[in-house]
């Protein structure tokens, strides 16, 4: 079930009504009912069984692990359950990577709930969380249906802060939530859908569309991905806000980051946090890595020797980030190993960098220097993402860059050739104007202490409602819904 679908909208409306007309104490069970409704509406039976199996394993493992007992047994259970849960995800999602061909389609949301479940088992094992005894309560947050569509990856130890059932209907929260949903729809349907038309056309025939076209496609793909993913997250967070739940943010103005490390702390935040908590630090603290650390310190000195295990752990973590995005080398390289290489290189060259700054007397506090840092980050990220979009493999990613430098055709920007990419002039204007709106809103957000919604809410009633109405109209009129009606369906009518 797509997040932009009538079915999903109807499910949300019905669940909201049901949620608010029932007494406070039974509300969590309303969520359980709609979690199940979503599971069955969005998945085939075998997928539902897969999800339920994952939840049952997590639920039982956490309870056993929490009980007093021998440590080796607990460890075995943790390892076994994590292997089974992660294995299910890998097999269903990325079987091709291991040369297997499994025809089953992975259940919706497998990438998100799997990580949350693994995190929960580990948290209980490490004693930072308590196992949930009530299976319905467990399924309420583990199977919370809006996050099944596109995340974010929630940490169950924060469940009491996220899911509150003791509050009555709050008008402001509800309205803010609805506005956020609308903003998400704008990003996804007005911006991402239009940008995708150009990106798909160019990537679909990159030998034909060489030179400047490729540059346009790789730059626009970053915008498309951001608008699409953050749009989905806005919808999920908005719906949750309407329920009165506060889910963690997944994006925090990533394009204003001064380096890649900071960028990845602002882009897909929940994935980054999950990997830091459950992969990066545990690896670093593991016995083999402690040993490596000792050896490298002896060999390369204290300063460098200390960093080598960190970098090794970084490489493993980034490999997994790439693999999580898709079990193929274009993902592993583009949003994994390439990013790790840049971050590690950045750290290695830091002394040299500082020396250059000192010698050239560069003032790092100027706006120009900050802009340089932002653009540099943007270039690295865009380059990595160009491989992410090369769906036909890593080779395609390199071929695309070869084509990008094969010809100099800047004139396509004004000779009308861009009109052949599937969008007419009107749609192109709407696309760029919408991107401009997105940038302006981001800038306002970065300069203000409160959210844009709060800013709008503080204005007078006419301005406020005019904003909402305009946004609604823009989404309805300019939004692109799935396969559109073929406006020129009857071509012979134009004879």
């Amino acid at each position: 079930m797509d997040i932009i679908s009538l079915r999903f909208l109807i499910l949300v409306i019905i669940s909201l009504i049901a949620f608010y007309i029932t007494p406070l104490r039974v509300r969590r069970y309303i969520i359980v009912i709609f979690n199940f409704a979503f599971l069955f509406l969005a998945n085939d039976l075998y997928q539902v069984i897969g999800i339920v199996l994952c939840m049952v394993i997590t639920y039982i493992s956490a309870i056993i692990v929490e009980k007093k007992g021998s440590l080796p047994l607990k460890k075995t259970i943790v390892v076994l359950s994590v292997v089974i849960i992660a294995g299910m995800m890998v097999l269903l999602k990325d079987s091709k990577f291991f040369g297997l061909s499994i025809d089953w389609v992975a259940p919706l949301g497998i990438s998100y709930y799997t990580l949350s479940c693994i995190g929960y088992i580990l948290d209980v094992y490490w004693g930072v969380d308590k196992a949930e005894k009530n299976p319905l309560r467990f399924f309420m947050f583990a199977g919370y249906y809006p996050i099944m569509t596109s995340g974010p990856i929630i940490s169950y130890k924060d469940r009491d802060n996220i899911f509150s059932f003791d509050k009555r209907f709050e008008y402001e929260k509800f309205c803010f939530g609805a506005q956020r949903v609308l903003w998400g729809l704008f990003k996804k349907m007005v911006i991402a859908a239009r940008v995708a038309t150009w990106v798909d056309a160019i990537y679909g025939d990159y030998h034909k569309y060489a030179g400047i076209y490729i540059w346009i496609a790789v730059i626009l793909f970053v915008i498309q991905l951001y608008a699409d993913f953050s749009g989905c997250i806005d919808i999920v967070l908005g719906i949750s806000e309407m329920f009165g739940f506060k889910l963690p943010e997944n994006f925090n103005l990533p394009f204003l980051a001064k380096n890649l490390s900071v960028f990845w702390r602002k882009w897909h935040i929940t994935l980054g946090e999950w990997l830091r908590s459950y992969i990066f630090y545990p690896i670093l603290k593991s016995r083999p890595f402690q040993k490596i650390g000792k050896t490298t310190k002896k060999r390369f000195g204290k300063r460098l020797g200390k960093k080598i295990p960190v970098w090794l752990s970084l490489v493993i973590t980034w490999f997994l980030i790439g693999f999580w995005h898709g079990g193929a080398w274009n993902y592993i390289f583009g949003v994994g190993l390439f990013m790790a290489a840049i971050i590690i290189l950045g750290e290695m060259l830091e002394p040299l960098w500082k020396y250059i700054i000192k010698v050239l007397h560069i003032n790092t506090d100027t706006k120009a220097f900050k802009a340089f840092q932002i653009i540099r980050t943007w270039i690295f990220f865009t380059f990595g993402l160009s491989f992410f979009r090369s769906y036909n493999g890593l080779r395609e990613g390199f071929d695309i860059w070869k084509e990008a430098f094969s010809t100099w055709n800047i004139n396509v920007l004004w000779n009308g050739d861009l009109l052949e990419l599937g969008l007419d002039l009107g749609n192109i204007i709407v696309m760029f104007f919408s991107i401009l709106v997105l940038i302006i809103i981001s800038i306002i957000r970065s300069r203000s202490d409160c959210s844009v919604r709060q800013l709008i809410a503080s204005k007078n009633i006419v301005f406020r409602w005019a904003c909402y109405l305009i946004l609604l109209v823009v989404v309805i009129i300019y939004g692109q819904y799935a396969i559109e009606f073929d406006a020129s369906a009857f071509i012979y009518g134009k004879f």
Partner: protein
Amino acid sequence: MKKKKNKIICVVGFIALSIVIFGVVAVITTYNEPINQVVAKVTLSEEYTAEEGQARVESIKRIQDTSKDYSVIVVGDSVCQYLFESVEEDNPSYLFVGSSRPFTIAGQYVQIKEFIDYHPNAREVYMVEGISTWESILDTQGGYQQLMVPLIETETINDLDEETIDYAKHNYSSLYMTYPFAKMVNHSNVCRKLILNSIMFYHQDIRGEDTSALFESTPGEISPLNQHYLKKIIQLCEEKNITLHIIHDPVSNTEQSKEDVSKEREMFDNAGYSDSKYADEYINSVLYYPEEYFVDGTHIVRERELENTIVQQMKDKTRTMNDLVIK
């Protein structure tokens, strides 16, 4: 309490205001063409023109025009629509109202019924068809805009059976099957865009149908809808003592076309027309022409001389349309 009340008023007011604004825009764009064009430009809905729907409305209005003394009606698909255009002005007793595939045999039935009702001198009915028309159904892309909307706007929808109307309501929603909505679809680009896309969205999303095909059909058979209305056309003509001829579109001389024609024979046999004079006449009337006579394999190149030659040969082969003047 008062604060809560104000907030509820605000939300209700917002919804009401939205509906009013949409309503005003819909009405203005439906009844004022210059404003419709401006709004179409701003809302990127310029290409959502209703040429076909409006042409069907015009054709029904022509049928209902009693100031003309028509005695013969020629209905059919888009091939028919263009083929007879050049002979129209020389034949005042003939009414040529070819339509399109999504108009289906059901739409043609309405045309024939209206013609017989409005013209007491009616003596002959011609149906000029091709395989795709027989296979056509009430589809997502064309069924609403090209069949239902013109019939609702001309208030001839009740010529169809109640079952058909109910099915259309089920397919396109009862709301869209009302006069104001039909009017909007046929005259306002932005409304047309929103309404047609919402129908598409509903079919894809709620019903989970594959609506990517431009024309949906029942390949290799006369669709149940067309079978039903063909039967009604035959009954109506026989009741009113009017001669009915079903003639084949001219087709290109290719293996595919020949295969299609033999398939059509089977289609008629399977539909219970194996001994029917109409099916025989239809299959025997087929004329093959070189591929270069067609722009897309189906539609004849738009040259008056060529069209007239084909009509003449059609006339000679079927020995019908005896008084048709071809200059």
